[in-house]
């Protein structure tokens, strides 16, 4: 029976991956918070890299699909064939070249320092033991870490956060690419003339995919020679972003954060996915948690289901003993490595499996909360295990289980925010997208914070009503 299930699973995997390989789409992985190379505009990801990607797709006769993931995830996206190419202003480094193949470079990038106008630092050579903010894993990060051992490098997940650090005087400088830097600086800042280092951007493909590499190289070569890339860059740099408008009022900021460009749509999309994932995960969690808790209870009471009991214990131990972010990434990048699958579904599955372990313990605690005497009275009357469990233990235990399950659901709603790691647009990612366009974190973060709070307050209220009813029912 077990073998049959394994075979069936294998067949499904082969079918699914088979379907995946026949696709007529070219998937490009990027992180859309890096204007002008990739950023959100009118709900779409656009930018220099995207336009080049479109040219490549056109040349290959394929349709371009853009996938927005965390910068650190782009290489694994390409390695695991979840995406065909990666383009996010990625500089050539030997370390990266060990993991993936680089195309010829399409852009020269200068890593520069941004400082406040009144800063004493006038050149990179003056850096000694200051604090400098960078984007985690960016070229500037690697370069500073390697060449300036006395610096304190503040590694932020986003350029915007790095800029915020400078604005708040938490750091003396920000190190990053010159072109996006021009987009990001405000009037109180200046870009130093001397570059830290000059780099070259390339796109990445899976190691050994020579066919794709050659085709992409050919397109890039043509675009460079006929001046298309320069035009594309100018087009995107010429964009007037909101930050150039001086002295925004609160109302302006709110307007640009929520209404302008239909940005509320990101929040709605994020809210939808957050709720979808939390609901789906809680269902899977209850199923998994129920099965494991009951099989452990059966084993404890009747010594049957020994293997299930051991498996359940192992499952709970592993899930509770590792970070949920890690579990999410393992499920996405390792287990679903070769399968193209809806990312929200992956989220539901990952959070569901995670939640199941906690639900399992909640249910076990509920079972254990039933007084032993109640159970003994049942046995003494001649009832057997299943009757005692279903008629006496379960109804009593539910009084403790249901409110705890409600709290688990609240935790899940908040936990979904790590879905952004694999590119799910849930609430937190939505606020990130908006902030990457407005260069202002305040409103997006406050708004989603408020939404989380509303959801959890609403759920708390539901749990409270449920508790009152349950107490009433036993009266």
């Amino acid at each position: 029976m077990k073998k049959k299930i394994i075979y069936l699973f294998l067949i499904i995997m082969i079918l699914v991956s088979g379907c995946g390989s026949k696709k007529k789409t070219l998937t490009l992985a990027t992180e859309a918070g890096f204007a002008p190379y990739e950023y959100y505009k009118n709900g779409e990801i656009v930018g220099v890299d995207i336009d080049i990607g479109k040219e490549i797709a056109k040349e290959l006769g394929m349709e371009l699909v853009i996938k927005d993931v965390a910068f650190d995830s782009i290489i694994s996206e390409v390695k695991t064939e979840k995406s065909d190419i990666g383009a996010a202003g990625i500089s050539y480094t030997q370390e990266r070249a060990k993991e993936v193949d680089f195309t010829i470079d399409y852009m020269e990038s200068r890593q520069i320092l941004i400082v406040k106008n009144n800063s004493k630092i006038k050149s990179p050579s003056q850096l000694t033991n200051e604090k400098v903010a960078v984007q985690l894993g960016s070229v500037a990060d690697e370069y500073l870490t390697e060449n300036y051992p006395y610096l304190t490098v503040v590694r932020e997940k986003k350029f915007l956060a790095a800029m915020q650090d400078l604005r708040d005087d938490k750091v003396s400088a920000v190190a990053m690419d010159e072109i996006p830097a021009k987009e990001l600086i405000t009037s109180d800042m200046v870009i130093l003339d001397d570059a830290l280092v000059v780099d070259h951007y390339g796109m990445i493909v899976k190691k050994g995919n020579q066919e794709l590499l050659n085709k992409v190289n050919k397109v890039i070569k043509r675009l460079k020679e006929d001046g298309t890339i320069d035009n594309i860059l100018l087009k995107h740099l010429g964009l007037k972003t909101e930050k150039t408008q001086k002295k925004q009022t609160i109302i302006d900021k709110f307007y640009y954060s929520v209404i302008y460009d239909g940005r509320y749509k990101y929040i709605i999309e994020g809210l939808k996915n957050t709720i979808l994932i939390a609901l789906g995960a809680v269902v899977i969690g209850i199923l998994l948690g129920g099965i494991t808790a009951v099989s452990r209870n059966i084993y404890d009471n009747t010594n049957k289901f020994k293997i299930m009991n051991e498996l359940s214990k192992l499952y709970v131990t592993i899930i509770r003993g590792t970070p949920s972010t890690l579990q999410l990434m393992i499920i996405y990048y390792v287990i679903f490595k070769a399968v193209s699958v809806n990312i929200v579904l992956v989220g539901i599955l990952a959070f569901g499996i995670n939640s199941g372990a906690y639900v399992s313990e909640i249910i076990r605690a509920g079972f254990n909360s039933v007084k032993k005497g109640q159970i003994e009275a049942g046995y003494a009357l001649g009832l057997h295990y299943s009757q005692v469990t279903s008629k006496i233990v379960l109804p009593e235990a539910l009084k403790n289980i249901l409110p705890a399950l409600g709290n688990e659901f609240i935790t899940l709603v908040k936990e979904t925010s790590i879905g952004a790691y694999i590119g799910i647009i849930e609430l937190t990612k939505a606020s990130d997208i908006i902030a990457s366009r407005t260069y202002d974190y305040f409103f997006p973060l406050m708004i989603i914070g408020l939404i989380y709070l509303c959801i959890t307050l609403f759920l708390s209220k539901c749990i409270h009503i449920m508790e009152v009813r349950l107490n009433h029912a036993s009266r």
Partner: protein
Amino acid sequence: MLVVKDLKKSFGKKEVLKGIDLTIEKGDVLGIIGPSGCGKSTFLRCLNLLEKPTSGHVILEGDDLIDNKELDKIRRKIGMVFQQFNLFENMTVLENITLAPILLKIMSREDAKKEAIKLLDKIGLKDKADNYPEELSGGQKQRVAIARSLIMKCEIMLFDEPTSALDPEMIGEVTELMRQLRNEGMTMVIVSHEISFIKNFCNKVVFMSDGKIQEMGTSEEIFEHPKNELLINFLSKINKR
């Protein structure tokens, strides 16, 4: 009716029962006394296998309960009354009494209800049928617990300190009901530290100490003419109080 042969029970390394032999005849009202920790409650709980003996036999009307696949069926014949009553807290008095006969398909729902009402009438709690256990006094709870066993038409009843958790003014209503059962010929095994109650109520008494039966006899033999030194010692301590 109930025969116990060389019954032993250990909790981990601690041996609580060190080999007990006992025969209970139909209609016997047997009291078990002894210092606390002597194993008398454990022994009682071994009689319906709420505690699984480490070795030995418990034989009810020829059926050995140990490793018996039909244990659930045999348990129906053995009623048990607990110190803490152990009524099902999420069920009404009526549901407490009718749960087992309905679930085990011994009676139809209607018959079980009729029978329960009859029993409630007998124990004087007909008006409490729809109340929940937490609305009852201790004495009322214990009477309901007895009725819950009676509806199973049990042939022998085990009482584990039935009055210890009761306020003094409620002990009477429970012992009165037990007296009624005794007079109807119910076989009873009672563990209690209410020595005067055992003395006056039981026709046979067992004195346990250190995991063994030290002396066994009629109530008169045990209390008026004790032979075992441990028993003499035990009784003298009690009389001093």
